[in-house]
């Protein structure tokens, strides 16, 4: 059987999904994180259940991409039942979605999540809520697992029926609905005519296209008439009625406990929100991330390389001797360097970064940062809504490009994606910047690269802002409550993100470095890289062999750094300063920070915007990287 999880944002839907299925989902407190339709199979009491996790949505009216995706996927999956996940502390908002699910004829089970929090504030009459809505209601706490078993018991019992609860609308809207019902209009999709008609009036494109042209005309006329008479759009009135209904239900089942004094959590929340304290905190947090990655990452690297070398001993020398000859040397050192590169160069920094990111996401801090930064961003010519994808982009550009879906027009999404690709350093690029310039020339020089990128983002923002005629969409974002991130979730999320570096990056690197080692041992490599030396030597002032790092950087960004160690036959932890000057390291890091998107990002761009656009963005960023690198080389050699 098929079950879909639906709910508002920030209701712990993904946490519940991972509780039910035991599978990790990368979720976070901002729109667009559940960008793909996550699904998993789980067996409960002998029944195989397919569980789908819908992107978080406040309504099914189909305004934003998220809402459209949610409406369409919900209809396509044709689930046996829908688990509507509500935040019990914000009952009204969640009920608005439940009313719509019921209206569309889905068999609904309500999961009242965050019940532990709600109990501290009010008594919630669950039985009464069940009686009113005529659907099963199960209090849950996704983080501890409370109620999840009961929820699944109800799912497999197949006792969930369509609720006949009816949301009442304004008499004029009801008149239209009656007319539709009387006309016995068919939608051909099995939705109850009342529910589909309301969606038609609301203008949800998924439903409008199911009706015949004459019915659509009727609805359009009706919308016009309604507007003339009420001086209010019909969709506003529908929402007004729905919230009225939800509010009435909430007030019937909720019995408030006496208001307590501000708790410590409230005080911390206030501290993060109020600009006077929040902005200094934000600056501290940003600096903290940077310093932690550099310092803790560096410490970890020393620790890991030390342990690795002690563990391995002269095993690779023996391996080389075993295979024998030049090839033996090449193979042994290829394997050795690959393992070192993964363990020592990438893992410490990326691990630290993702751990911090996961904590920030799960604590609900990110939307606060977005809110405080929005005014500044808009002043600098960037869109308010752009902040979230850009923050996500400092982790990885792929989800960042998907997160641009919260913007309304495709053109704007493309522009923002371009800025992200060129000017927002992903975690792998951060590793390169810190691993080269940061370690050799110090934090100040690394800071200079970040400043250059920031400047680049601002210039790009300005230019594109000018080119763009439309009004920038502005920010509307929910500020969730702060919550203590669960260790399990943070670790799970970090693992999901770091996993790729082992399963995808390691084999690539291994093969790549074996080939390179062989080419070097047989002295072929130099002949191969010479023809491109006008780019590397003349323009950038780098050794010709560096082109290999740039090529590998297309596969995965961090490989560019790892390959540096391979082509210069350095062991991890060695000082790159012995083979490249400070200026060369700076130019290299700058080129890599703006350089063409990696394959993953290229695929994401193609998927979202088309091949032509993806190629254009890539070419533009390659050109930009070489121009910037060339300029830096020129300036530094003055």
């Amino acid at each position, binding site marked *: 059987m098929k079950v879909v999880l639906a709910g508002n944002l920030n209701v712990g839907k993904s946490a519940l999904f991972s509780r039910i299925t035991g599978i990790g989902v990368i979720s976070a407190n901002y729109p667009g994180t559940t960008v793909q339709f996550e699904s998993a199979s789980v067996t409960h009491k002998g029944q195989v259940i397919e569980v789908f996790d819908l992107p978080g949505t*406040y*309504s099914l*009216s189909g*305004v*934003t991409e998220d*809402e459209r995706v949610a409406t369409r996927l919900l209809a396509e999956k044709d689930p046996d039942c829908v688990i509507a996940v509500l935040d019990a*502390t*914000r*009952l*009204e*908002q969640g009920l*608005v979605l439940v009313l719509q699910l019921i209206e569309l004829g889905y068999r609904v089970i309500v999961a009242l999540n965050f019940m532990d929090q709600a109990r501290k504030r009010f008594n919630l009459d669950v039985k009464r809520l069940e009686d009113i809505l005529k659907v099963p209601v199960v209090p849950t706490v996704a983080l501890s697992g409370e109620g999840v078993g009961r929820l699944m018991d109800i799912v497999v019992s197949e006792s969930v029926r369509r609720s006949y609860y009816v949301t009442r609308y*304004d*008499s004029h809207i009801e008149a239209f609905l009656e007319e539709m019902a009387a006309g016995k209009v068919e939608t051909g999709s099995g939705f109850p005519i009342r529910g589909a008609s309301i969606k038609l009036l609301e*203008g949800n494109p998924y439903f409008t296209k199911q009706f015949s042209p004459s019915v659509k005309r009727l609805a359009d006329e009706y919308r016009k008439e309604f507007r*003339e*008479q*009420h*001086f*209010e*759009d019909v*969709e*506003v009135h529908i*929402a*007004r009625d*729905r*919230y*009225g209904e939800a*509010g009435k239900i909430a007030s019937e089942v909720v019995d408030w406990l006496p208001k307590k004094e501000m708790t410590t959590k409230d005080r911390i929340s206030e501290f993060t*929100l*109020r*600009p006077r304290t929040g902005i200094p905190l934000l600056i501290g947090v940003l600096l903290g991330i940077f310093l932690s990655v550099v310092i803790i990452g560096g410490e970890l690297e020393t620790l890991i390389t030390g342990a690795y070398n002690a563990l391995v001993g002269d095993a690779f020398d023996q391996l080389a001797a075993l295979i024998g000859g030049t090839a033996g040397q090449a193979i042994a050192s290829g394997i050795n360097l690959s393992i070192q590169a993964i363990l020592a160069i990438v893992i410490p920094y990326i691990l630290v970064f993702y751990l911090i990111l996961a904590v920030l996401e799960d604590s609900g801090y990110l*939307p606060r940062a*977005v*809110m*405080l930064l*929005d*005014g*500044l961003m*808009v*002043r600098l010519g960037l869109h*308010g809504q752009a902040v979230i994808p850009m923050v996500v982009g400092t982790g990885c550009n792929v989800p960042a490009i998907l997160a641009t879906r919260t913007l*309304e027009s495709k053109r704007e999404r493309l522009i923002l994606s371009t800025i992200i690709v060129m000017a927002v350093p992903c975690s792998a690029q951060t590793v390169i910047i810190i691993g080269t310039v940061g370690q050799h020339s110090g934090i100040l020089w690394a800071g200079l690269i970040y400043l250059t990128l920031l400047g680049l983002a601002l210039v790009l923002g300005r230019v594109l802002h000018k080119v763009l005629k439309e009004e920038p969409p*502005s*920010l*509307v*974002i*929910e*500020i*969730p*409550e702060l919550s203590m991130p669960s260790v399990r979730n943070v670790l799970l999320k970090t693992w999901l993100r770091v996993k790729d570096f082992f399963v995808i990056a390691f084999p690539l690197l291994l093969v790549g470095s074996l080939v390179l080692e062989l080419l070097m041992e047989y002295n072929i490599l130099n002949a191969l890289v010479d023809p491109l030396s006008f780019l590397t030597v003349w323009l950038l002032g780098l050794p010709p062999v560096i082109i290999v790092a740039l090529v590998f950087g297309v596969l995965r960004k961090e490989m560019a750094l790892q390959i540096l160690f391979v082509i210069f036959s350095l062991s991890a932890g060695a000082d790159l300063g012995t083979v490249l000057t400070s200026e060369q390291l700076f130019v290299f890091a700058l080129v890599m920070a703006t350089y063409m998107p990696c394959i993953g990002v290229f695929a994401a761009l193609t998927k979202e915007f088309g091949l032509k656009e993806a190629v254009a963005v890539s070419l533009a960023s390659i050109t930009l990287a070489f121009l910037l690198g060339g300029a830096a080389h020129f300036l530094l050699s003055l």
Partner: protein
Amino acid sequence: MVSENAEDYLACIYDLTREDEPVKTTAIAAKLDLTPASVTEMMQKLAAEGYLNYEKYKGVTLTSKGRTVAERIKRRHRLLERFLVDIVGMEKEQGHLEAMKLEHNVSDETVEVINQMLNYPTVCPDGDPIPCCESPATPDPAFSMPLSDMSDGDQGKITHLACEDSAKIKRLISMGFVPGRRIKVEERIPLGGPILVQMEEMKVALSRDYASKVMVRKCD
């Protein structure tokens, strides 16, 4: 001050007036279900008080003084009808009868509040236009103001969304900015940043652009 009875007569003449043609006494008598004789008597009285021009055999026309009274009463009637039908939920016929009774006694202030509450409708439930008042009782600016103009700590109820862009309206309503809901301004973020508001149990940050479209009536 005009009597209720006189108000009804003037309103009736207003309804029957077509392109400034005089209205016949018989037509008025038919509409109000009275004898022509008693109508004629009232016409003479109202003409003497300067509300009507009365021409024997041709009929009556409203003077500007009479017109003001008639428009005021029609306006009240149609706004009350709207209120009774849309908000109270009465049937049209019932709303009409109820409005007939209330229109004479309701205060001007109440009528204007109803007008704002209904978001300035222009027609009554039957589609007849609602006349503008002669001297518009200027709406109290404190009645409904853009969210973006409110100060930290201000509370109120959303009255309507003042926006022509359907995509923006939908976005606002899907985030819960729906007329009738209570809202509190928590903090205006500096540098032209968003406004942090509290609605029920939910906190939302919205840009000033969006906030200027949410109209709120301040209350405690």
